[in-house]
């Protein structure tokens, strides 16, 4: 049972990731990425790291992928999708072959290892839930990196705003108070009848 689930999710992951790099339309690519993230989250659940699975969905899918979509929508789509993809790059093929070689290498390196299977039971130390266990470690041993990651997020927020905020005034708006309070804009004139007012 676990095998089938594993194979199903991992296949979904691989297929989705492949699609995300090969789709021409960027929105399609991002959506495939979302599917990949979801499959990965399910895999995490299978290992027993449910906190991280949930985190993956919330942060990656909910924030990062949505951000991608916002940006893709903001940019001019016509220009992007009108050109053909250029996929003939020998270096890329070379990289794939090299990666396959490394993977094969890995398979032979861990020959004497498969004595352990990562299952949910194996991670049940003190019968705590995953979140509780992570919390016990995160706020005690890894307290400093935790605070630093907060600073990193602050940095990211400030940076993003600073980079993209434009200070020009493209739109003209009315401020009625200001209009009325102009000194020489309004003048009381007593017009004579039949003669009109000279401005």
């Amino acid at each position, binding site marked *: 049972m676990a095998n089938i689930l594993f194979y199903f999710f991992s296949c979904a992951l691989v297929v989705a990731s492949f699609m995300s790099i090969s789709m021409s339309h*960027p929105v399609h690519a991002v959506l495939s990425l979302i599917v990949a993230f979801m499959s990965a989250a399910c895999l995490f659940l299978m290992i027993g790291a449910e906190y991280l699975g949930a985190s993956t969905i919330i942060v990656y899918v909910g924030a990062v992928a949505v951000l991608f979509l916002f940006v893709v929508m903001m940019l001019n789509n016509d220009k992007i999708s009108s050109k053909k993809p250029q996929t003939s790059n020998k270096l890329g093929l070379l990289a794939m072959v090299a990666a396959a070689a490394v993977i094969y290498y890995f398979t032979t390196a861990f020959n004497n290892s498969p004595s352990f299977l990562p299952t949910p039971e194996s991670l049940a130390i003190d019968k705590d839930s995953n979140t509780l266990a992570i919390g016990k470690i995160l706020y005690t041993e890894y307290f400093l990196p935790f605070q630093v990651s907060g600073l*990193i997020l602050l940095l990211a927020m400030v940076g993003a705003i600073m*980079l993209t905020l434009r200070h020009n005034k493209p739109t003209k708006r009315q401020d009625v108070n200001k209009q009325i309070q102009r000194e020489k804009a309004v003048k009381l004139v007593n017009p004579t009848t039949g003669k009109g007012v000279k401005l």
Partner: protein
Amino acid sequence: MTPLFGDITILHYLILSGIIFTIGVCGISVHRRSIISLLISIELMLLAVNINFIALSGYWHNYDGQIFSIFILTVAAAETAIGLAILICYFRNKGDIEVSQINHLKG
């Protein structure tokens, strides 16, 4: 090849992680049209590393891997945000996010 067809071992997770990472690398190196695909490939690579960490954390009954995975999550989010902000600035200046035109550092 017998270890691959039986129970799910750590090897499976590691191979999976490697495959995803490779796909990410290929996404960068194979000539795509836009910068968005670059950023997506980077996300894939980070995902692969995440899988690696969490799988090994389960293998060794250690929560360090998962803690690190949290941090990777944080950093990936931050980096994506800033990367996209830079992309928007670049788009405003250039009007186009064609990868083959980003060769200003050409020697």
